[in-house]
């Protein structure tokens, strides 16, 4: 589980993405170091999901280079075995979970293990159960189908499936969307504890200010087709150079969350 924290896990150089003559990204540069939670924020349509899809090789890039753990992946072919092995080292949790509706909860988590390993069925089933236990899902739900689960449970199963092959980098697309504040808080705590336990690098797209303040180590702000700010949450929230970003963290809604979390943080420091 030891990792060289000084080497970037993801490096994006001069990335450009063009859809039908319209540039979504242009000269985008981003370096992400391991073992931390990074949140990507930005206005709707600024290309947050596109960026993640490009790192996951779900979408071709127009120009530039993407490196994953020092390996150039931007020219990989999705059908290559190398690409498949690379993809087994990254995990993605989709916004709606993207669970296989025809498989049970346990089978959903077993699926990638069957695909990549030649372990016995018993071992795979036990490993899948460990993953589900790590995400805190009750054993009574293991034989249920995704349709029979609540939103919070679905997210936990999706997270367990994402972690099935012990990825080093995990992408989470709006992990707390559709959850009530309590469940969202619990899910944030789960993400944070799993990040520590498994030494993960988590890259999260979210609009949930509570999530950003409570678990993010760094915030990446996308705007004007590139990364405009990449800093700690506190520094980003105090950055006045971009009015809309400042407004986001210090507007009527943002300031309440900011004040609460800063007070909470100071309280913890005093203790």
């Amino acid at each position, binding site marked *: *589980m*030891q990792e060289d924290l000084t080497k970037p896990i993801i490096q994006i150089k001069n990335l450009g993405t063009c859809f039908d003559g319209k540039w979504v990204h242009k000269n985008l540069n981003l370096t992400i170091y391991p073992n931390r939670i990074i949140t990507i924020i930005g206005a709707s349509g600024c290309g947050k999901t596109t960026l993640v899809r490009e790192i996951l090789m779900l979408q071709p890039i127009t120009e530039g280079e993407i490196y*994953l*753990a020092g*390996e150039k992946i931007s020219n990989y072919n999705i059908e290559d075995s*190398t690409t498949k*092995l*690379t993809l*087994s*080292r990254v995990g993605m949790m989709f916004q709606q979970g993207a669970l*296989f*509706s*025809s498989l*049970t909860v*346990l089978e959903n988590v077993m699926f990638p*293990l069957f695909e*990549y*390993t*030649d*372990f*016995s069925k018993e*071992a795979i*089933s*036990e*490993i899948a*159960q*460990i*993953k589900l*236990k*790590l995400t805190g899902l*009750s*054993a*009574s739900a*293991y*034989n249920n*189908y*995704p*349709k029979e689960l609540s939103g919070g449970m679905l997210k936990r199963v999706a997270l367990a499936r994402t*972690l099935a*092959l*012990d990825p*080093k980098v995990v992408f989470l697309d709006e992990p707390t969307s559709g959850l009530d504040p309590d469940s969202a808080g619990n899910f944030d705590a789960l993400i944070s504890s799993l990040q520590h*336990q*498994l030494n993960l690098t988590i890259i999260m797209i979210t609009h949930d200010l509570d999530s950003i303040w409570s678990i993010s180590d760094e915030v990446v702000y996308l705007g004007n087709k590139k990364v405009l700010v990449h800093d700690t949450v506190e520094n980003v929230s105090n950055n006045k150079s971009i009015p809309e970003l400042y407004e986001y963290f210090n507007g009527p809604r943002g300031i309440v969350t900011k004040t609460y979390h800063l007070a909470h943080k100071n309280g913890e420091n005093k203790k």
Partner: protein
Amino acid sequence: MYKEKSNQKLVKTTAATLEFNANTALISLHGCWLWSSINEKQLKLDLAYLKNIKTLQVDASKIETMDTIGAYFIAKILQHLKRHQIKVTHFSLPPSEKEFFTQIENKLNEPHKNKVSPESGGIITLIGLDVFTFLSSTFDIIKFFGQFCVNLAGFLISPFKLEWNEVIRTISSAGVKGLWVASLLAFLIGVTLAYEMSPQFVNYGANIYIVNFLGIALLKEVVPLLTAIIVAGRTGASITAEIGVMKVQEEIDAIQTMGISPFRRLVLPKVIGVVIAVPLITAIADIVSMFGGATVANNSLGIGYVLFLQRLQSDVAINNYTCGIIKSLAFAFIIALVGCFCGFKVKGNANSIGEQTTKSVVLGIILVVFIDAIFAIIFKTLGI
């Protein structure tokens, strides 16, 4: 002990190994205990050698790295030793991995509150379930038909409330787009039947009777049936899939919560559309099939097109044609209704859409042939 297994570029790993030293009663674990570098079969083989041993030391302090799956397999080694009454006197791990390993070991040893493997019933249970499913499906079809009739009555009272755009869309997809397939097959069937039968007529010197044969067989039986089968495959399946996807995406629930009947919004327009389209394409396919037959009659039997038409007009009663069209109306109705019914039966998963689409086509074709048999009896009784 194991061969280098992982060749991935991203993470260079050495294989996970287990070495047993009988002299010192020590198991040493080496290498990377990652999913990509663990060979479960080899591990089991290595553990099988450990027999007639009372105590053992396990040294995992030299492992390079470990993930959840690696921790699971190390925990399984300890479990195996315990099960075989081998006492582990000493177990060491790298300090950085201790807490993580303990967590995974605890998760593995947590008792299961619920049985995880699905329960399977005996043969009696399975037969019982099948009978129950069949009876409840039959009941559901009758109920569905009843609901349709109620909504049809509503449509007859106020026909303008119907989604006519949807009707036209259905006519376009079931009729216009399906026309060329139905026509092509009808032409080929006309040609084939005429070719197959022409030697028989020639033997008896009754060449001209090919017209009577083709007129009755094609117009009354073959073309309506063939067209219905094509429509069941194309339109029936597409109706099921369309409604099924809507069901999965809760669009039907949305329609219901708006106080709109899904029957009026979805089923009626589709059924009406198909009922309008199918007789029309059957009528056209009838003509094309006759043309196919006439072509063969002209080339092989020396019956010119004009003579063929004259004979058709004089010897083949118009009833054959109208019977075919009436049958196609019934076929269309049943195909569309079955398509909609199966669509509504879709449960919330992707497999279910496939299952119901298959069911829709199979059930549609079976019912079409069944109704065809009933029509044959009715027409015979009525002397048509």
